[in-house]
């Protein structure tokens, strides 16, 4: 087990190095100069200001030494400073990431609960009307453009029907509490502020559903096909020959076996959720990593892009590690000694 984790961590290092290098090369291929992008018109006319700016950001050095410098800083855990926001990238990430994480987790819970439920019903009633309806819904999930879906849902549920609150993480007339984990649901729960807890939960429901819809589709689809496969397995026949009820067969024997590939899909889905925030955070005024990534990407803010990419690559590896460990928990055949 330790050996296994050690190997994964080694791979993580390689991965992070690769990601950083890739982003660095990419962002320096671009014919754009952060100087022009970040100084005002009048400031640009002042060589003194330009020189001071270049010196501050190390832009007066050669590309290679910029790269070296960047990696040196990376090794000490310094992700550099964002050119666009002028703040340390690490601080930026710490500020924006919890919002995204919280939303992703809620979306994931919604996706898992509904996806597994739908997939199971669909497999049990294979080729019945309910199966077709569920499949249509789950395929809609993976086919609907999230940005469009978000727009429409926000308009319908918030504006027209007024069921859900509007944009943001909390009621606009209150302010985000300081400190804690930044996961407001958790923080408010711990501090016992249930008014805030329900406010936060209400604000999470709509974006969580919109985001989770895609992953829900993936999971439902995967659950259905796995369950169908598992139900044709010999050990399900064995279970039947023991006299188990059909429902007990599904719950005790089929679902757990069908879940193994679903876990992988769920893991990929979670990573996609984090990366796919870009399209909907804007609409829900969600102060998360997606917005940050988008603004960094279009303004070619190299340290910030790299920071976001490293963070997501890191999570990718961690999620994969968790998935592997979860495999071990569920499936005794892949326990790592």
């Amino acid at each position, binding site marked *: 087990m330790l050996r296994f984790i050690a190997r994964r961590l080694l791979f993580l290092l390689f991965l992070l190095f690769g990601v950083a290098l890739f982003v660095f090369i990419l962002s320096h291929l671009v014919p754009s100069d952060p100087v022009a992008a970040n100084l005002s018109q009048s400031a640009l006319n002042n060589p003194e200001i330009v020189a001071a700016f270049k010196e501050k950001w190390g832009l007066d050095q050669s590309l290679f030494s910029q790269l070296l410098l960047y990696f040196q800083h990376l090794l000490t855990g310094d992700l550099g400073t964002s050119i666009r926001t002028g703040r340390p990238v690490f601080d930026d990430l710490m500020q924006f990431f919890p919002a995204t994480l919280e939303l992703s987790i809620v979306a994931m819970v919604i996706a898992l609960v509904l996806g597994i439920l739908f997939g199971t019903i669909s497999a049990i009633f294979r080729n019945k009307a309910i199966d077709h309806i569920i499949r249509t819904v789950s*395929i809609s999930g993976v086919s609907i453009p999230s*940005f469009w879906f978000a727009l429409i849902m926000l308009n319908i549920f918030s504006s027209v029907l007024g069921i859900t609150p509007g944009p943001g993480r909390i009621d606009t007339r209150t302010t985000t509490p300081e400190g804690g984990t930044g996961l407001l649901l958790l923080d408010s729960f711990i501090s016992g502020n249930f008014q805030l807890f329900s406010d936060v939960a209400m604000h999470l429901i709509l974006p969580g559903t919109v985001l989770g819809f895609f992953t829900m589709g993936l999971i439902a689809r995967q659950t259905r096909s796995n369950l169908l496969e598992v139900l044709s397995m010999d050990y399900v026949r064995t279970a039947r020959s023991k006299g188990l009820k059909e429902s007990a067969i599904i719950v005790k024997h089929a679902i757990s076996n069908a879940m193994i590939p679903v876990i992988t899909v769920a893991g990929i889905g979670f990573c996609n959720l984090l990366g796919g925030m870009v399209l909907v955070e804007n609409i829900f005024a969600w102060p998360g990593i997606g917005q940050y990534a988008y603004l960094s990407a279009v303004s070619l803010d190299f340290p910030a892009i790299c920071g976001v990419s490293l963070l997501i690559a890191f999570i990718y590896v961690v999620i994969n590690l968790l998935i592997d460990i979860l495999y071990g928990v569920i499936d005794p055949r892949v326990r790592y000694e």
Partner: protein
Amino acid sequence: MRKFSSFISQKGFLFKLGLFICAFWIIVVIFAPLIATHSTTAQELSIRYQQPSFSHFFGTDELGRDVFSRVMYGSRISLSAGIITVIIAFSFGIFFGGIAGYKGGKVDEVMMRFSELIMAFPPLILAMVIAAALGPSIINSVIAMAIIWWPNYARLMRSLVISLKESEYVTASRVMGASHIRVLFLEILPNSFGPLLVMATLDLGNAILMFSGLSFLGLGTQPPTPEWGSMVSDGAKVIQNWWVSTFPGLAIFSISIGANFVGDGLRDFLDPKLQKE
């Protein structure tokens, strides 16, 4: 009600529906000039933001252009971008994955680590960076998406090659003295086509979605080219004029769901385990 449920529970209904949707859009792509009622670019500021009516089926947009005609013509851009992306990713992926799977060992290890590196990137952000770096255009978006997409094919191809290269008919071919190239291209490739095709079909929907996403963010096509994603983006600013974003959004949704229905149906058809009654 019973009739309805028996009708839709007929085997492969969703597959047929998917085929129908795809066929519909292909017809639209081909006959767009005949279907479109107006020019896609002609502006008429006096009729900005007109509601859908008989003269403008889907209403008009910010510059008084006919949304219906733009949606119809938009199918050309979206479909071709999606298809080209998938073709590039598909070709490169099976080439890469084929070699990795067939060679095995260190070569495989290195190649797969590389593909994992690409996969560890958040796809949309990577596409955004690439598209932003290369400058927004259809071709650059397609390149960006293909860069993100190929590892999926490579990994699938690799796993197929690994399982097929141990299959008995491949062994038979090798016993007969067939070269590696012959084995890879004539024995393994044709037999791995099924799952790859399913993946490609399902991916077509995804590619169209992502392309429209990039366009939505202003990284896809250049205006005034009618493209669905950027049309949704235009309409998103004025959601009260719902028709501007709703129709192109529905178009993306329908083509994507069509491709997914077809892909799902194909998978069911090709997967003997799911075929079993």
